[in-house]
């Protein structure tokens, strides 16, 4: 049984300009211990999918479809969601400073999550908090316990935020752009930390990112989202080696390389993502070099085995074009 299962998940927002559909039918299964990366540009619905799955959409958002954690349906079940958040699913956000309550000490925040979920005494929770800080490689953990978030550096804050999410021992950790706000050396350290934690704790990891370097270092499986839908998914190695959807290929081609000509402009995917209006065709056709008349009808996500792609003109799996 999959740990987390999403079936035809839709997320809609009521706004002044009318209803926006941010996620348009998303299917996803995360197995225990697996690392799944969800990639795609800003606004593709990556974060909203996971916020909806954990019942944390903004007040004007609604989710429909099916969300199950360990077989238990969660959507519209606030009591179950409250039980799953923390010990079931942990969440690490992009904004590390913002993720920590400014007026509580590091120790108080770490211990709280454990005390609330596992009824541990304050002293034991503090011991465990210290051990968790060591585990996420925060230097001088004893001193950190008594400090406030504003007294820590950005990288330490993100480590503490990760430790806070790990305290209730979640079976699945969602990391929403965990490295975006950090400088490059700290990014590499955090990626290494996630790799260690997965190996030592055996938890599943869902990684939301637009940093393909992070994906390559961590993920077993990659899901590429565009305009609220999955356009391609597959094992990380295969997907990087031979992307089949033109959008995936574009994302990979846009990665800067060390041997790039520094004077040349960076490669981009021309055009802009579509708005959130209704559209019967492939959402990528306006930016796609391969689009034809068939693309006026939206292609289904289809394929064999673990690799699937939603495209009428998929690239040859054998090699690039």
């Amino acid at each position, binding site marked *: 049984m999959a740990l987390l299962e999403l079936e035809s998940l839709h997320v809609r927002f009521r706004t002044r300009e009318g209803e926006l559909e941010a996620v348009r039918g998303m299917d996803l299964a995360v197995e225990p211990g697996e690392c799944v990366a969800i990639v795609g540009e800003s606004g593709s619905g990556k974060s909203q999918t996971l916020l909806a799955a954990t019942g944390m959409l903004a007040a004007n958002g609604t989710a429909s479809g099916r969300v199950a954690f360990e077989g238990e349906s969660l959507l519209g079940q606030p009591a179950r969601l409250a039980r799953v958040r*923390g010990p079931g699913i942990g*969440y690490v956000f992009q904004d590390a400073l*913002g993720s920590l*309550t*400014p*007026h509580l000490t590091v120790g108080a925040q770490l211990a709280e999550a454990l005390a609330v*979920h596992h009824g541990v005494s304050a002293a034991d929770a503090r011991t465990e908090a210290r051990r968790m800080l060591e585990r996420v490689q925060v230097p001088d953990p004893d001193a950190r316990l008594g400090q406030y978030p504003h*007294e820590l550096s950005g990288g330490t804050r993100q480590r503490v*935020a990760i430790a*806070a999410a790990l305290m209730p021992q979640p079976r699945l950790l969602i990391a929403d752009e965990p490295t975006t706000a950090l400088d490059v050396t700290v990014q590499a350290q955090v990626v290494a930390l996630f790799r260690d934690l997965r190996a030592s704790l055996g938890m599943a990891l869902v990684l939301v990112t637009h940093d393909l370097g992070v994906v390559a270092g961590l993920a077993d499986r990659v899901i590429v989202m565009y305009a609220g839908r999955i356009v391609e998914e597959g094992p990380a190695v295969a997907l990087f080696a031979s992307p089949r959807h033109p959008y995936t290929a574009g994302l990979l081609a846009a990665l800067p390389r060390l041997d790039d000509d520094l004077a040349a402009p960076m490669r981009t995917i021309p055009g802009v993502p579509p708005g959130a209006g209704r559209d019967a065709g492939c959402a990528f056709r306006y930016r796609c070099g391969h689009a034809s008349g068939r693309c006026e009808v939206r292609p289904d996500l289809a394929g064999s085995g673990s690799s699937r792609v939603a495209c009428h003109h998929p690239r040859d799996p054998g090699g690039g074009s």
Partner: protein
Amino acid sequence: MLGYVLRRLLGAIPTLAVIVVLAFLLTRLAPGGPFDEEQALPPEIKANLERAYGLDQPLPVQLGRYVAGLLRGDFGPSFKFKDFTVTELIATGLPVSLKLGLAAVLLAMLVGIPLGVLAAARHNSAVDHAVTGFAVLGIAVPVFVIAPLLALVFGIHLGWLPVAGWTPGTVRDMVLPVVTLALPVIAYIARLTRGSVLEVLRSPFVRAARARGIPGRRVLTRHVLPAALVPVVSYLGPATAAVLTGSLVVETIFGLPGLGRYLVQGALNRDYTLVMGMVIVFAALMIVLNLVVDVLYAWLDPRMRPGRRR
């Protein structure tokens, strides 16, 4: 923290000195004097009076004498409340005003903050609308309307509480004036708290706390409330000052021997020493209130604690 408080209190001395000098000069700048009556006094009597009170001396000499008195704790004689020194007037009026004012502010906090939190937690519900409506009403209706209405209902129709009067040491006499003083402050604090809690509820650390599975009520009290109370605390200083100085109407309606009437009468009568006494007392109160507010800030938010840097 103790060292910080002491430093702040020492720092208040020059502030008070400037206030004393400015207030002294301003009272003398105002046209007229304490012995100008509608029926003018014979010039020789007025001259005698002014000599008796030292008003015939040059201003710097007067100021020097006044300050010398202050340093001995002597605020001088009142020009209008003859037979009383200003020190005596303060000694009788200040405890009454302080009791009323602090009780009103305490009541306002105890009622206003929970009301605001409740309204924010049930955003857009009937409770929220009721609190918001009450807040608008409480801010809009002036004290001189509330006071007689309360006296009419609870003093005359229901007969539960005295309409007016002051017997030292009784609580019954305080209820109506304190409620009257507190109502607008309750309304304002409720509105302020509601808005502030709603804002903090949207911050990322609240989302992160919820994502860690912290139950809603605990998120509200531990993660939201301390952050949300910062603007409320900023308002407490001026609110207490306003309640203490603005109690004239309430003191008059309920016949209370507080300080409010001395401030107004003193100013109208050009009772120089009385006005000076009131200004100094209220300035000292403001300084202490601001210090209390700053200490509360530090208690609520570690980022505002003195001397703690990254």
